[in-house]
């Protein structure tokens, strides 16, 4: 089945220690998104790639970076995680857009910062 895959499902890191979260997709979609979701809140968009074009949201901290080496994979790098970065991180894809297209989400990676 075509899908969005996130690894790992749970990630524990130490305060200030860089961490990378992974996302892959078998949908061959052009757009990949990274969201941060904190408890009982809506997903908050961090950035997205439209093919190779990177689009950062204005309020995304510099601490968050992303890489998309090919169509299938996208990575979220947190350079110096703080306690406030503990959250669920969701990857999503859409065939085109963004906008006017359904986004399909992966299962998420829950990040714990000690």
């Amino acid at each position, binding site marked *: 089945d075509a899908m*969005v895959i*996130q690894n790992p499902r749970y990630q524990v890191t130490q305060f200030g220690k860089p961490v990378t979260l992974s996302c892959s997709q078998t949908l061959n979609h052009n757009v990949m*998104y990274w969201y941060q979701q*904190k*408890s*009982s*809140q*809506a*997903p908050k*968009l961090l950035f*997205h790639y439209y093919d190779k074009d990177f689009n950062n949201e204005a309020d995304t901290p510099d601490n968050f970076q992303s890489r998309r080496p090919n169509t299938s994979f996208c990575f979220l790098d947190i350079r110096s995680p703080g*306690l*406030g970065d*503990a*959250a669920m991180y*969701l990857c*999503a894809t859409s065939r085109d*857009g*963004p*906008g*006017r297209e*359904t*986004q*399909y*989400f*992966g*299962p*998420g990676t*829950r990040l*714990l*910062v000690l």
Partner: protein
Amino acid sequence: GESVGLHLPTLSVQEGDNSIINCAYSNSASDYFIWYKQESGKGPQFIIDIRSNMDKRQGQRVTVLLNKTVKHLSLQIAATQPGDSAVYFCAENMGYSTLTFGKGTMLLVSP
């Protein structure tokens, strides 16, 4: 750790009842709307969508109603089941902008 979360609006229903979840959207120019279901510890799952040239769309056990006059969106779930228990988010989009999610409603279905 995580900041303290907000309390989500909660709708409690009995199994077999019909559920209606409401959403007020913010942008009168939005032209595409999606409902997502998110179970605990999982990513949002697409349920149904509707474009602004429609006011009603039906799926399997679900119906979405769009009232553009008052910027209101609703999700109706027929014969609600315990497996429908989750947080439901509406999301809106305008043109080629990215999705904007609403605050979410928790649906609790008791047997």
